[in-house]
């Protein structure tokens, strides 16, 4: 999906009169009237076609037994430029590190996706999802359970050999 730039041909001096310009303008609008370009998305009924690298609502991957994949290494709160991730790590009996508290403030988040890039165990992801409206502000701080509940598709990381993710 590339942006194409359309060069407008300007009328040459003394080649275009008001009358002719009016008629050509009427012809132009008539063409659009009878054959409008279908660009409007009827949003609630029609799904937006999100790009494979669209970065939206976060999601925490889980193991088969339901534990979060996060190992509380602390890289994501460190790299986060908006400082929106709060992580308190813990250690269980076997010496495995796990997150005791893992919260993401979706209001502070700038959706740069660096948490996903930096994660060594592919636990935290940004996702192809944007419908996260809430009635109160405190609902926008997603805790660990809520992040694990998310089931939308995750964002594809950038691949240099496929720069457009096609």
């Amino acid at each position, binding site marked *: 999906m590339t942006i194409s730039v359309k060069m407008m041909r300007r009328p040459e001096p003394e*080649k275009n009169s008001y009358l002719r310009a009016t008629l050509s303008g*009427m012809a132009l609008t008539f063409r659009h009237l009878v054959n*409008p370009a279908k660009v*409007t998305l009827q949003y609630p009924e029609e799904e937006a076609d999100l790009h494979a690298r669209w970065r939206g609502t976060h999601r925490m991957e889980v193991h088969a037994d339901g534990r979060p994949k996060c190992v509380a290494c602390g890289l994501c709160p460190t790299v986060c430029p908006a400082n929106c991730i709060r992580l308190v790590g813990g250690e269980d009996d076997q010496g495995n590190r796990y997150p005791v508290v893992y919260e993401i403030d979706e209001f502070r988040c700038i959706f740069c996706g660096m948490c996903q890039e930096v994660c060594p165990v592919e636990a935290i992801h940004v996702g192809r999802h944007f419908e996260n409206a809430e009635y109160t502000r405190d609902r926008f701080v997603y805790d660990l359970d809520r992040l694990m509940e998310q089931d939308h598709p995750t964002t594809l990381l950038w691949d240099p050999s496929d720069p457009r993710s096609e």
Partner: protein
Amino acid sequence: MDALQPVSGIAGFIASVAKVVLVFAGVMLTVAYMTLAERRVSAWIQDRIGPNRVGPFGLLQPIADGLKNLLKEETLPAKSSKLFFLMGPMIALMPALVTFAVIPFAAPLPTHWGVVDMVVADVPIGILYILAITSLGVYGLVLGGWASNNKYALLGGMRASAQMVSYEVALGLSVVAVLILAGNVTLTQVVWQQQQLHFWFAFPLSLAFILFLASAYAETNRLPFDMPEAESELVAGYHTEYSGMKYAMFPMAEYANMVTSSALMATLFLGGWDLPGSWDNMFWYHGQLISGFAANGSVILAHPALWKTLLTFVAFAIKTAFFLVVYIWVRWTLPRFRYDQVMALGWKVLLPTGLGYVMLIAGATLVLDQLGLPWGFTYGLILTVLSGLATAGFLVFLDRGHTIFGAAAARDQKTIVRHRAGVPAQAGD
């Protein structure tokens, strides 16, 4: 079958009341759905979809809009002149609705009690009545604008009156050409003469048609002549201070004026309810409903029928709808004129053209009548050719020298001029 008589007595009274109610309801319904049509057509022109949420295809949108406007708070500016402020919308809306009364909208309908003319009031002063009443509408805009005690509203009202004065002249002159040909100001007679000429007046009077079209846009304050409203200059013009239903009455008046002027253009220039062929020709001639004259001068009686009435009504509706769509189409294509351009077009172009054209048509009809040419196809054909030449000359005159300079074009031209003069183009040009 007995000779057909016009409906009279108590049946005539009932028929009149029924026609008044039906025409009023029809005009109001058209006005309501014009708001929807305007929004949908503008949306399509701009590659959008437009209101399609209220009811199927958004068809209930006008009802929702009306309900909203009825329930909205009515504000009254503190320093306004309250009586005139309240009178403004009424005076604007009333003439817009009553003008439709003299426009015939279908062939006469035969009933058990007599033949019903499909026109609310076939008054003998038809066109004069319309010109007189539509001019009253501008009082509503001026009063509303003045009473608002707001400089923008006042300017909008002043512009409305200035524009009305300027274009009423051109409008009247283009109508004069029609009256010369029709020989009468009654609209039923205008339709009848077009049927007899075998030409709709848009052809033998093509230049008058163009003048009338341009003037009608100015008279109804539609783009490109919407100086009184001019949202980019005057906030909202004369109705800046209005809200709720009082505001809604101004657009309603504008749309009603559009409907009336479209119907009038269809009647004057596209034969009204006439369809090609002589099967639908009907006219009251000395108490007889006739469809034409035989070669020896005797009358041929007409045969009105329900299907003829319905078919001619559909023809009339289609012609009117055509002009209404063109109104919308023009609005969403052309930008607004500058105020001085509006005045210049009205006084320096349309008025002299209209005057000259009236002279031309008057002279042509005089010559043709003196030659004894009968009112019919040849007569119309000669006038069509003559008017075609006049129209072509007018368009060439309009086209001449009125060039558009886009920013890029102006820059290029400056460079060209410099090169010709031997001066090298400077950096930064």
